[in-house]
C-alpha cells in the first residue's frame, strides 16, 4: 500500500470527528464544528459527506449559525439534490419569521440553491416576500427573482413574477427600486426582444427620483438602466441630462462614469447649436480629469474610458494640458505607467508644441516618449508631418544625446511613410552620426544611409566607419549594416566593391549568428548570379508604413460609448467578444447614430483617407539614379503585343475605364503647353511641355528653363510606372550645361514597353527629373489620342461582328452640343481614328470608327451627326465600358 491510505484515513478521521461534533448537544460545539466545515470548504476540501449533519443544524434561532449552514447549503445543495429537499421546510418557515432579517436571509439563500425540485417550492414564499411590508425583505426578494430566472426562466414567467417586479419600480423605497431595476435589466438582457423594461416617461421619472435617494450602488444600477432608454425628443433628453448631471460630483467613480455614459448617449439627441449642449460638454471635462487622481485601478478604467470619450467628442479642450501633465505625474509614479497613452488626431495637432516642450525635459524616459509621440503624430496626421519634422530637427539641434537618438529612430519611420518628401534633412542627421550609441538609433541611421546612399556623398565612408566595429555591434545593427552596404553597392557599384566584399565575409565567415550568416549568403549569391535580380530584390519598392491606428472604428466606438464604465470599455471590445451565451450579445447603438456628428466624422475621415503619396517613388528613385547601371530599356525585347494587351486589359478592367471620362475631359487642356514643374518647387528649374505623336512616335516635348542663380548640369529623367507603360526611349538630351536664365527645348521620344500600373486618372504620368542640384518630381497628363496607333483600322466584317458582340451596357452615348463638325475622315485618320463605314439614316450621318491603343485595346465608335447635334457613341471590343465626352471629339477632330 502507498501513502495514500494515510490521507484517506486522516480525512476520514477528520470528517468523522466533525460529524460527531455536529451532532453534539452543545450549541457552542455545534457552531465551532460548522465553522470548521466552512473553513475546509473554503480551501477546497470536499465536505459534502456531512450534508445531512449540517442541515440538521439549520433549525436554530442562532442567526450566526443559521447563516453558516446556509452558506454550506449554497455550496453543496447542487451536488446533493435529494438531501437538499430536507431544507425546504426550514426555508418556508423562515420566510414567515417575524424578524425581517431572517425572512430576507431565507429568501436570499433560497435563490442560491440551484436545485430544480426545490425551486418549485420556493415560488409561494417568494411571492409573499415580494409584497412584504418590510423594504429590506422586498429589496432582497427583487434580486431573488433574477436568481430564479437564471435557474428557470419559464417558471418565473409562468408565475407572473416579472409583473410584480415591474410594480416594484414604483416602490416607495429607493433601494427596492434600485434592486428591481437591476434585476429587470439583467432579465431583459437575456430576452433582447421582450419589452420587459418598459421604460416610459413615467417610469423614467420614478427612476430619476429614486436616483437622488438610493445608495451609490443603486445609483449605478439606475444610471446603467437609463443609458438603455431612448428619449422621445430632445426636450426629454435635455431634462434627463439636467437631472443626471449632479451625479458627476459623486465620490464614487462608477457613479460618475455611468452618469457620463448617460450624458454621452443623450447628448446625441440634442441639437449641437443648443446652448445647453455646450454647457454640458464643458461640464463633462473636469470630472474626467478628477477620475485620474483616483486609486490606480480606477485610473486604469478611467483612462481606457477617456480614450473612448475623446474619440467621440472633443470634451477635454482646455483641460488637455493638465491631462497631459497628469499622465506624466500620476502615471509616472504608479504601477500603471506602461499603459500606452493614446491620443487622437485632434490631440496630436494641439499637443505638438507641448510635446516639444516636454522633449526638452530632464526625465529621460519621458522625453523619449514625447519624441516618439511626435513621430507618431507625423505618421498619423499628414497635415502635421511638416511641422513635426521641423520640430524634430529643432530637437536634433539641441544635441542632447538621447533626444537626437530617439529623433533619428522616429525620422526613419517618417521617411518610410512619406518617401521623397523630407530627405533634405539627411544632411543634418549625418552630422550626428558619432553621438549615436544605442542600437536602435544606430540601426535607424544605417538604414537611412543605405536607403539614400545616392544622396549622401560620403555614404561609403560613413558605412565603412560603422563596419570597423562590426563584431561589437548588436545583431540589429549588423543586419542593418549588411543590407545597407549591399544597397550602396547596387547603387554605386564601382566604388564600393571592396566594402561589400568585406561586409559579406564578415557576415558569413566571422559571425556565429545564423540570421546574419543566412542573410549574408543570400546577398552574396544574389549578387554573384544575377545583379539585376539582386537589385530588384534589395531595392524593391517598400510598402508604405502606417501607424497601427489607435482609433477605434466608428461603429465599434458607438457601441463602446454605450458601455462606458463596463468591461467592454476597458477591453475596447464589444461584449460579445468576451461574454458567453446570449447575455450582452445584443449590440447597442447610439440614438443619433444615423446623423454622424461632424467632429467624429471628420476624425474618422482623416484617418481613413488614403495617404496622398505617389505610391512607388521609392522604386522610381532607385531606377532613376541608376541610369548608368542599367542598360537602356530598348535592349530588352519589347513584349509581344498580345501580352501587352493582356496587361493593359487587366489593369483597365479594374474599373479603370470609368476614369477615362476624366482624362478625356482634360485632353484639350493638355494639348497646349503647360507648366509642369514651377521653378518655385524645383530650386529654380522650370519645366513646361506637351505631348505629341509624330510619325508613329510618341514624344514628350519639354522646355527646361533655369531660373536659379547657378548652372545646372547632369540632367536625367525617369517615369514612374503608369497605365500604358510609357517610358523614355532614350536619355534626356541636354548636353550642354544650362546657365542661369537660359532655356532649352528637348524632345524626348517615348515607348510603351515600360512597367504598367494603373494610375488615377488613367493618363496620369509621374515624372522625376534629376540634375546636379536635386531630384524633382512632378506629374502631368497626356492626351489619350497620343496612344492611338497607326494600324487601328479594323476590317469591316470584324468591326460589324465585334460591334454586335458588345453588350449594350458597355456602350455609352454622349450629346455634343455647339460643335461644328467639319471632320473629314482623313483628318481623323491623321490622329489614327479610322472611319470604317459611313451611312445616312433619316438625314443623319452615321460614322463608324475604330481606334487601337498602344496596349492593344480596341475602341469602337459611332458618330451620329445631326445638324448642330452630333451624337457620339463609343464602345470597346473588350466589352469594356468607355465614356466619351464631347470634348474628346473636338480634340479628335481638331488634332
Amino acid at each position, binding site marked *: 500500500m502507498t501513502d495514500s491510505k494515510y490521507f484517506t484515513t486522516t480525512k476520514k478521521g477528520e470528517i468523522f470527528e466533525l460529524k460527531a461534533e455536529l451532532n453534539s448537544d452543545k450549541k457552542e460545539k455545534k457552531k465551532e464544528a460548522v465553522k470548521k466545515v466552512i473553513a475546509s470548504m*473554503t*480551501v*477546497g476540501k470536499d465536505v459534502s459527506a456531512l450534508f445531512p449533519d449540517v442541515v440538521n443544524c439549520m433549525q436554530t*434561532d442562532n442567526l*450566526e449559525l443559521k*447563516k*453558516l449552514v*446556509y*452558506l454550506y447549503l449554497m455550496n453543496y445543495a447542487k451536488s446533493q439534490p435529494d438531501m437538499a429537499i430536507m431544507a425546504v421546510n426550514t426555508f418556508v418557515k423562515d420566510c414567515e419569521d417575524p*424578524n*425581517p*432579517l431572517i425572512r430576507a436571509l431565507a429568501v*436570499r439563500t433560497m*435563490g442560491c440553491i440551484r436545485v430544480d425540485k426545490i425551486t418549485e417550492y420556493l415560488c409561494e414564499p417568494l411571492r409573499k416576500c415580494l409584497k412584504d411590508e*418590510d*423594504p*429590506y425583505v422586498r429589496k432582497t426578494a427583487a*434580486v431573488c427573482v433574477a436568481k430564479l430566472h437564471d435557474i428557470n426562466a419559464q417558471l418565473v414567467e409562468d408565475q407572473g413574477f416579472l409583473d410584480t417586479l415591474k410594480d416594484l419600480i414604483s416602490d416607495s*423605497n429607493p*433601494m*427596492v427600486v434600485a*434592486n428591481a431595476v437591476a434585476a429587470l435589466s*439583467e432579465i431583459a438582457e437575456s430576452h433582447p426582444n421582450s419589452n420587459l423594461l418598459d421604460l416610459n416617461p413615467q417610469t423614467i421619472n420614478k427612476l430619476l427620483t429614486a436616483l*437622488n435617494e438610493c445608495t451609490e*450602488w443603486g445609483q449605478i*444600477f439606475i444610471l*446603467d438602466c437609463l443609458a438603455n432608454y431612448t428619449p422621445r425628443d430632445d426636450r426629454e433628453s435635455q431634462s434627463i441630462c439636467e*437631472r443626471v448631471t*449632479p*451625479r458627476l*460630483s*459623486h*465620490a464614487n*467613480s*462608477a457613479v*460618475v*462614469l*455611468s452618469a457620463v455614459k448617460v450624458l454621452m448617449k443623450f447628448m446625441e439627441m440634442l441639437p449641437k447649436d443648443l446652448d445647453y449642449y455646450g454647457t454640458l460638454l464643458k461640464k463633462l471635462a*473636469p*470630472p474626467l480629469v*478628477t477620475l485620474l487622481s483616483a*486609486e490606480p*485601478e480606477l485610473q*486604469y*478604467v478611467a483612462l481606457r474610458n477617456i480614450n473612448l470619450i475623446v474619440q467621440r467628442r472633443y470634451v477635454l479642450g482646455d483641460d488637455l494640458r493638465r491631462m497631459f*501633465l497628469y499622465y506624466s*505625474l500620476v502615471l509616472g509614479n504608479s504601477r500603471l505607467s*506602461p499603459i500606452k497613452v493614446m491620443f487622437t488626431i485632434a490631440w496630436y495637432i494641439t499637443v505638438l508644441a507641448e510635446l516639444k516642450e516636454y522633449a526638452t525635459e*530632464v*526625465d529621460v524616459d519621458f522625453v523619449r516618449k514625447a519624441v516618439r509621440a511626435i513621430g507618431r503624430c507625423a505618421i498619423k496626421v499628414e497635415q502635421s508631418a511638416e511641422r513635426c519634422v521641423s520640430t524634430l530637427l529643432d530637437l536634433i539641434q539641441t544635441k542632447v*544625446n538621447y533626444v537626437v537618438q530617439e529623433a533619428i529612430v522616429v525620422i526613419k519611420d517618417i521617411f518610410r511613410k512619406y518617401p521623397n518628401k523630407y530627405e533634405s534633412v539627411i544632411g543634418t542627421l549625418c552630422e550626428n552620426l558619432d553621438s549615436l550609441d544605442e542600437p536602435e538609433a544606430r540601426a535607424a541611421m544605417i538604414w537611412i544611409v543605405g536607403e539614400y546612399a545616392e544622396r549622401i556623398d560620403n555614404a561609403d565612408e560613413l558605412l565603412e566607419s560603422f563596419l570597423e566595429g562590426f563584431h561589437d555591434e548588436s545583431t540589429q545593427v549588423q543586419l542593418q549594416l549588411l543590407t545597407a552596404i549591399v544597397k550602396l553597392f547596387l547603387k554605386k557599384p564601382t566604388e564600393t566593391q571592396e566594402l561589400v566584399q568585406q561586409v559579406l565575409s564578415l557576415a558569413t565567415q566571422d559571425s556565429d549568428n545564423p540570421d546574419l550568416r543566412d542573410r549574408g549568403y543570400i546577398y552574396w549569391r544574389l549578387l554573384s548570379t544575377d545583379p539585376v535580380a539582386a537589385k530588384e530584390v534589395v531595392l524593391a519598392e517598400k510598402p508604405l508604413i502606417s501607424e497601427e491606428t489607435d482609433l477605434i472604428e466608428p461603429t465599434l466606438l458607438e457601441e463602446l460609448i454605450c*458601455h462606458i*464604465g*463596463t*468591461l467592454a470599455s*476597458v*477591453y475596447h471590445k464589444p461584449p460579445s467578444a*468576451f*461574454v458567453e451565451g446570449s447575455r*450582452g450579445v445584443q449590440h447597442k447603438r447610439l440614438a443619433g447614430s444615423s446623423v454622424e456628428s461632424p467632429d467624429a466624422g471628420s476624425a474618422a475621415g482623416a484617418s481613413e483617407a488614403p495617404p496622398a503619396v505617389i505610391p512607388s517613388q521609392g522604386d522610381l528613385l532607385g531606377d532613376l539614379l541608376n541610369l548608368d547601371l542599367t542598360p537602356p530599356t530598348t535592349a530588352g525585347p519589347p513584349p509581344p503585343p498580345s501580352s501587352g494587351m493582356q496587361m493593359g486589359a487587366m489593369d483597365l478592367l479594374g474599373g479603370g475605364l470609368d476614369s477615362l471620362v476624366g482624362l478625356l475631359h482634360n485632353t484639350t487642356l493638355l494639348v497646349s503647353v503647360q507648366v509642369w514643374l514651377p521653378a518655385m518647387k524645383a530650386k529654380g528649374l522650370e519645366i513646361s511641355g506637351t505631348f505629341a505623336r509624330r510619325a508613329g512616335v510618341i514624344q514628350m516635348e519639354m522646355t527646361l528653363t533655369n531660373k536659379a542663380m547657378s548652372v545646372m548640369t547632369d540632367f536625367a529623367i525617369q517615369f514612374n510606372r503608369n497605365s500604358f507603360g510609357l517610358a523614355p526611349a532614350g536619355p534626356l538630351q541636354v548636353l550642354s550645361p544650362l546657365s542661369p536664365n537660359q532655356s532649352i527645348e528637348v524632345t524626348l521620344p517615348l515607348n510603351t514597353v515600360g512597367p504598367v500600373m494603373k494610375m488615377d486618372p488613367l493618363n496620369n504620368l509621374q515624372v522625376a527629373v534629376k540634375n546636379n542640384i536635386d531630384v524633382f518630381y512632378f506629374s502631368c497628363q497626356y492626351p489619350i489620342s497620343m496612344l492611338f496607333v497607326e494600324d487601328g483600322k479594323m476590317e469591316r466584317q470584324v468591326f460589324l461582328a465585334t460591334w454586335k458582340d458588345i453588350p449594350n451596357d458597355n456602350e455609352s452615348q454622349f450629346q455634343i452640343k455647339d460643335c461644328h463638325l467639319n471632320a473629314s475622315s482623313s483628318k481623323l485618320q491623321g490622329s489614327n481614328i479610322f472611319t470604317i463605314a459611313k451611312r445616312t439614316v433619316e438625314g443623319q450621318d452615321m460614322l463608324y470608327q475604330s481606334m487601337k491603343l498602344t496596349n492593344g485595346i480596341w475602341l469602337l465608335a459611332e458618330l451620329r451627326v445631326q445638324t448642330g447635334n452630333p451624337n457620339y457613341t463609343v464602345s470597346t471590343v473588350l466589352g469594356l465600358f468607355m465614356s466619351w465626352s464631347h470634348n474628346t471629339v473636338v480634340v479628335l477632330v481638331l488634332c
Partner: protein
Amino acid sequence: MIGGLFIYNHKGEVLISRVYRDDIGRNAVDAFRVNVIHARQQVRSPVTNIARTSFFHVKRSNIWLAAVTKQNVNAAMVFEFLYKMCDVMTAYFGKISEENIKNNFVLIYELLDEILDFGYPQNSETGALKTFITQQGIKGQTKEEQSQITSQVTGQIGWRREGIKYRRNELFLDVLESVNLLMSPQGQVLSAHVSGRVVMKSYLSGMPECKFGMNDKIVIDKQGKGGASDDPGKSGKQSIAIDDCTFHQCVRLSKFDSERSISFIPPDGEYELMRYRTTKDIILPFRVIPLVREVGRTKLEVKVVIKSNFKPSLLAQKIEVRIPTPLNTSGVQVICMKGKAKYKASENAIVWKIKRMAGMKESQISAEIELLPTNDKKKWARPPISMNFEVPFAPSGLKVRYLKVFESKLNYSDHDVIKWVRYIGRSGIYETRC
C-alpha cells in the same frame, strides 16, 4: 454582475471564496492564482481576462482581493466595491492581514452575504452594517429594533443609524491638501495644482442636518451680487476657484448642482466629505532657488536657497530638500545655515532636513560635489530638486466659512456644538528644475 469573490494570501492560498453565480466554477480560483499571483511577469493590468472570465484585483499589503465575472459588468463599480469591501473589513477588524482574515472568516462570509447579493452590491456603509452584523447574534432584539434596522439599511440615509447620542456634540474638520509644483530654474511656474480633501469627524447626536460653507468663488460672487454691504473687491480676492469637486454620498448633489450649497446628514465618526482640485492662484509655500555651477570636469558647485512664503507667525514642519547628485559623485562637502544636511550615496542625493521654519524666512545650503572622471559622454540629466514639507494652512486658499448643524428633534443648537477646524498643506510632487 460579480460572479465570485476570492481573497488570497501572498502565496496564492485562498482564504475566502464566495461564489455568487453559477457560471463561476471552482477552477476560477486556481486560474487567478496561476495566471496572476504566480505569473512569471508581474501582471500590471488590474483587469485580467483568462478563458473568457474576467478577474478584477486589488492588493492590500500582501493580500489579494479578486472579483470574478463572466459578464460585461461595470468595471468601475467592481473596483469601487473592492475598495469599499476593504474599508468595511478595516472598520470591523483593523488591518487587512492574513491573520486577521483567518480570525474573522465567519464574519467576512457574513459580510459578503450581506453586501453582495447575486453579485449586486448592497448597502455597504459600516454605520448601518454594524447595527446588525455584530457576531453577537441578534436574539434579544425587539420588533421595533428589528424594523428600525431594516428601515435604516434600506433607507435614504443608509450611512447613519438612528438614536446616536453623545453627551458632548463635537465635530472636527480637517482640510488636507497636497500641493504640486513644477518650476523652471528661473522661477517660472510650469505647472501647479492642489488636490485637497475635507475630512470630517462627527460626534453628533440624533440625525443632524449639516451645511458646509467655504470660500467658493461661485458662491461668494453670487452673494456679493445679492448683498450690497459686502465689499466685492475684497471678497473676490479671498474666494477660490475650484476646478472640480466630488462629494461623499451623504451630500445632496442635486442641491449642490442647483444652489452650490453643500448640505448633508453626516455619517457617524470619520469620513471624507469632499475632494477637490484647484489650479488657480495657488499659494506656493516655498520657493527654491537653485544655482548649479560646473567647475571643470570633476567638480560641481551647488547652492540652493529656500524661501518660505507665508505669514511669519506660521511654522512649516518636516521640511526636506532633496538635491540630486550625479552618479559619479565621489565626495560631497555641505554647509547649511539651518537644519542638517547629508549626502546619501545610495540615493544619489543630498538630503537637507529642517525641522521647523517660520514664514518669510530664508535659508541656504551650499555644497561642493567632487566627481570621478568618467569617459561617459552622456551629460548628467540634472533631475529637479524636490521638496517635502507640511504647513498649517491650505495652499489653495480654501477657507471653511461655516459648518452649521441643525437637529430639530433634539434640544441642542448649532452653538452648542464644539467645532474644530484644522488646515494641513503637504507637498505632493514639489519640484524645481536646476
